């Protein structure tokens, strides 16, 4: 029998939410009782949510996995030889790397997630961490910006704007701003607001490989001449907050952050700022106001945040995944990254399979596979075992897609053509029990709750939207209310300052267009004047 050295029990939000803490405690106790010379390491998570808590046992021939391990399973697992990596248990999954769901992915950004102890700098470096930064420290800002431009990397927060162009604007911007106490400074702001339902890739980076984000932000700072960075983190992520703060503290202690990074004479200071439960603060201008301690009102553009962003200074605002892609790009070159993907959608996208799905979790793939491959091959259909009916891609402002659209390639342009969005890569699956009229109603309701209130079509239009959909559901003047809903959607689409009001019509209209039967009187029994 191979010698066991280490046992891994994940500690990301999902694993914890399913009892990982208790699992770790029980295993730790068993190790103590047996006085075994085995380390218990809390790794992040590989992102295979459906297998969490995924316990791994490392032998000299690699890691084997057991999952999903609930606290109730632990005594049985221990009895069946967990600590000797024995295969005699129903939860035994074999070598982790050979689990097809993981093996078939193209992990670039998430290559380390779940493999290392997230806050161990030694682990991080032993697995290739800081190679990008070491290289970047010897490059000029121009070279760095050019490398990112060559990679074809587009913003992963939703709008898919080319990162290189944004960085170039900030690099060339003057930071002189007489009268502003922040004059002379540029900022890197990481958008970690991750508000879209069905998305958790940002969280996973922060909880499973936080130094990757830190490294990406330092490189961004070197590229544009910024020495200060903020991570604007949503308050719904308590574990990410704690882990980021711990990682920052350790990175500072080892001089990877702060003044004179590793004796290079370069500086980068990083601070986490917590949001306060407002979806709109994911929109970059609202985020900047919130970061400045104000109400998170959307600002008109121009001025671009790149020129006049945080505290009035030139600022790169990028999503977590955008920044987390950078170390790999700098280490391997922009061309290597652009070798993944197709058309104008280059590189990989960490998709997030969520909702009613059998094998949900993080699936990183090059752009170009189809939605169907994702939900069927990786997802394995619904958890309930019922037929899939609708897929909402790209968060709460994304369209509901019917089966006829599931062969759409996962590519920004192809999705736009289908009237849908890829956004931050969230894929939410619904089975055939879903009431699409209620989903449309919820989209409007969400807009009521989360509108910043600046424009009437968004603030008031969404309230009207809920009322109109309620009337349709109650079969009151159905035909004219459907027409009214369509007009209302037009008004919101064309009369809103930002995509909150402007894209709320996406889920609403796609529900009406692709699932018209849900809005028929027959599907809702309550009577009323037709």
């Amino acid at each position, binding site marked *: 029998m191979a010698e066991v050295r280490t046992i891994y029990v994940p500690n990301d939000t999902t694993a914890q939410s*399913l009892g990982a803490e208790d699992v770790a405690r029980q295993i730790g106790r068993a190790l103590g009782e047996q006085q075994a010379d085995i380390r218990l390491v809390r790794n992040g998570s590989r992102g295979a949510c459906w297998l969490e808590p995924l316990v791994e046992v490392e032998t000299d021939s690699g890691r084997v996995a057991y999952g999903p391990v609930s606290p109730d399973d632990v005594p049985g697992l221990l009895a069946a030889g967990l600590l000797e990596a024995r295969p005699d248990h129903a939860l035994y999954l074999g070598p982790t790397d050979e689990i097809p769901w993981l093996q078939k992915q193209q992990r670039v950004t998430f290559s380390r997630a779940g493999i290392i102890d997230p806050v161990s700098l030694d682990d991080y470096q032993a697995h290739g961490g800081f190679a990008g930064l070491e290289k970047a420290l010897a490059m000029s800002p121009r070279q760095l910006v050019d490398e990112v431009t060559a990679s074809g990397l587009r913003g992963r927060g939703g709008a898919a704007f080319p990162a290189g162009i944004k960085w170039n604007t900030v690099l060339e911007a003057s930071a002189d701003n007489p009268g502003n*106490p922040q004059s002379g400074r540029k900022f890197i702001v990481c958008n970690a607001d991750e508000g*879209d339902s069905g998305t958790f890739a940002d969280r996973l980076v922060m909880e499973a490989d936080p130094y990757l984000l830190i490294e990406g932000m330092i490189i961004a700072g070197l590229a544009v001449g910024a020495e200060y960075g903020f991570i604007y983190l949503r308050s719904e992520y308590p574990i990410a907050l704690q882990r980021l703060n711990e990682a920052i503290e350790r990175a500072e202690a080892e001089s990877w952050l702060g003044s004179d990074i590793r004796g290079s004479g370069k500086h980068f200071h990083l601070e986490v700022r917590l949001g306060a439960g407002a979806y709109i603060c994911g929109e970059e201008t609202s985020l900047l106001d919130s970061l400045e301690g104000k109400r998170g009102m959307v600002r008109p553009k121009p001025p671009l945040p790149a020129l006049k962003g945080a505290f009035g200074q030139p600022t790169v605002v990028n999503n977590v995944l955008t920044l987390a892609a950078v170390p790999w790009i700098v280490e391997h070159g922009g061309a290597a990254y652009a070798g993944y993907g197709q058309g104008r959608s280059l590189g990989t996208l960490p998709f997030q*399979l969520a909702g009613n799905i059998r094998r949900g979790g993080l699936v990183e793939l090059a752009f170009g596979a189809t939605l169907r491959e994702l939900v069927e091959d990786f997802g394995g259909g619904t958890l309930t075992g019922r037929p899939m009916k609708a897929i909402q891609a790209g968060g709460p402002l994304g369209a509901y897609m019917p089966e006829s659209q599931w062969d759409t390639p996962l590519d920004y342009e192809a999705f736009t053509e289908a009237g849908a969005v890829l956004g931050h890569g969230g894929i939410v699956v*619904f089975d055939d029990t879903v009431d699409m009229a209620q989903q449309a109603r919820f989209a409007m309701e969400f807009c009521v709750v989360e509108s910043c209130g600046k424009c009437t079509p968004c603030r008031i239009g969404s309230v009207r939207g809920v009322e109109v959909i309620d009337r349709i559901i109650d079969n009151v003047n159905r035909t004219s209310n459907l027409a009214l809903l369509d007009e209302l959607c037009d008004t919101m689409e064309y009369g809103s300052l930002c995509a909150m009001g402007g894209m709320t019509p996406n889920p609403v209209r796609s529900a009406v267009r692709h699932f018209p039967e849900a809005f028929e009187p027959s599907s809702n029994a309550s009577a009323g004047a037709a």
Partner: protein
Amino acid sequence: MNRAALESVIQGSVDRHRGKPGPLLVILHDLQAQWGYVPDEAVPLLAEALTLTRAEIHGVISFYHDFRTTPGGRHQVQVCRAEACQAQGGRQLEAAVREHLGIDWHDTSADGMVTLEPVYCLGNCATGPAVRIDDAILGRVTPDRMRTLLDDLQREPVNISGLMTEAPHG
């Protein structure tokens, strides 16, 4: 609220974050962590300490869902209402929680133990429905298990850190 205590907490927070640009949100989080809400009496003190107007402070407090202006229950229970959880039975869970507590969103149970808030995604979307109880996030929460959890919360003493150790398929 004891004014001297209030002043000292606010002063402590302001001092701690001195030098940080735009610290209001950071300070409000401190106050909320201390008392579970931001007392009205804090507003003029914050205005003075940060050279902002009271209206500005009020405006910020009222904008964000996180900040309360009245005391909440001993425990904050957030139930995810967003789409991925809806797809996994979240709507049924929402209904069960409201019915079991006999209160609506944003309300506090009569015994003062639980304040119920909606939340729009906890980032636990592949293993929903998701719930947050204080700082513990739970996954695959069924109505039955939730009723048990709520009953436990409403009974003292409570072991919050132990919550995450419940069997996942209760």
